[in-house]
């Protein structure tokens, strides 16, 4: 049980507690803050997996933009909620059973397959290689350009949909 494993356990407790808080919390604002906790935990995972650029991007995009967007949407759509407000809808039992069944199936598969793990280490110039891979036609240029078009379309669409009439 070395240091990385202890850190992993702490981070996974944070991420899973945040996730549980999101789905179980009555107060929507608290659910958003639990989501932020979960996202920061996941960013910690990325650092542990030696993908630091992605950890910074996760905090910058998810915590710095998406979580704030969610909080603004919560504040703009508030209405008086009665104290007996049950956050679960009519099909919550079915949802719970499906989630548990899926988790059991995934666990069954994950723990039995012998994954082809390799002991190689991350290349030193990882960031510049990532940049070149993202704009090189042999690798990821097409998904990169399509993602940027998708962002543009989503930007225009979101502005039009949420506009005051």
């Amino acid at each position, binding site marked *: 049980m070395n240091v990385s494993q202890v850190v992993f356990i702490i981070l996974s407790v944070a991420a899973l507690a945040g996730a549980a808080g999101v789905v179980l919390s009555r107060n929507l*604002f608290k659910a958003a*803050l639990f989501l932020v906790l979960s996202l920061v935990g996941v960013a910690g995972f990325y650092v542990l997996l030696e993908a630091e*650029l992605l950890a910074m*991007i996760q905090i910058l995009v998810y915590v*710095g933009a998406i979580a*704030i967007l969610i909080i603004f949407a919560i504040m703009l759509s508030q209405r008086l909620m009665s104290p007996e407000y049950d956050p679960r809808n009519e099909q919550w039992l079915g949802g719970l059973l499906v989630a548990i069944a899926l988790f059991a199936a995934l666990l069954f598969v994950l723990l039995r397959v012998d994954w082809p793990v390799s002991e190689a280490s991350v290349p030193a110039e990882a960031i510049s290689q990532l940049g070149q891979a993202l704009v090189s036609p042999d690798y990821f240029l097409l998904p990169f350009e399509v993602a940027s078009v998708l962002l543009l379309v989503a930007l225009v669409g979101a502005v039009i949909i949420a506009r005051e009439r």
Partner: protein
Amino acid sequence: MDVINFILNLWVEIGDWFGGVLAGWGVPPWGVNLIADIIGVLILLVFGIMAVIVFTPMERKVIARMQDRPGPNRTPGYGAIQAVADAIKMLTKEDVIPRNADKILHMLAPLLVAIPALLIFAVLPWGPGSGLIGQDLNVGILFVVAISAIHVLAVIIAGWGSNNKYSLLSAFRVVNQLLAYEIPMVLSILVVVIFAETLSMQGIVENQVIPYFVVMPVTALIFLICALAEANRSPVDLIEADSEMVAGYIIEYSGMKFAMFFIAEYVNMFAVGIVFSTLFLGGWKFFGLENLAPVLTPIIVFFKAAFVIFLMLWFRATFPRIRFDHLVGFAWKFLVPLSLINLMLGAVVVKIPVDDPMMVPWVHGAIMLVANIALVIVTMIILNRTAKRVEGAPALKRIVAAER
């Protein structure tokens, strides 16, 4: 000779001596590293808090002198320990939580504001090598940007947790401003990263043969404006806009929590000063002094940061506050296209082939400087052509016409 060498490399020698002492006591290597890291964290925290103690009275004295008045001079030492007096005052005030406010959110917001401000100190370089920096992340500058993104979240929590609609409205406005100025900041940082070919803070300082302030003045100016806006300093401060929003999103905070917001603001200002000096003024370099006497590099960094902070105080003392819609329009309509064009210019300039590898920074620097000056001239021409003459208020026109 040996003593002089010891003094010139003072920080490295102290670090080695301390490690040797700990190893001599039988501490295993991981223990030595752990203790060294903890002591480093404590030193960085002290630097952060020292920023508050040094810069609070400096701000009030400098602004006061610029306004031709003495400034705070009741505390001993011509007002130098004003921050300590302020802290004692804040500690003795009652800590009020509004009745229907969420207690956890109300108490969480000052923490979430102060912690990121202190966290930036983990990646700031105080000297060459890997000893005088908290942790030389290879994504250091992106870490700084991510921390500013967390600050936005803290503002919303502060505004919501006060259960006060004016506080919430002010938080909306501040978040609007912060999000608008984050984009030109990231774009101008990208230009620096393109020239330095690395994201790590230490790498950016070491690759700066010419300080980037000379190479790309437009980028430095854009970054300074955006950093001012991100740190909520005048002329873009909406918290202390007493005439507009009472006291902004910190209305309902009193006592030590209120002090936390201001500690966070000053620590943020100091961190912004150091980040600006790292990116654009050459960091711990000073025309070769750092090679002769590496002991002086933290002092060089401190003075460069103090110069940038003096610039910020100067802006606060002289510029009037900008109206909010002008502010946000300036960011979206002017700074974002300008920084995008700057980025494109930088990307083109950096790819110009130069035969001699030693002359690469100088040639690229000269071409980028020319490109920046051309950009300024073209922008001025476009703005002059498209500016509208604004008609004065009718009363003013009558007065002006009557005087003729």
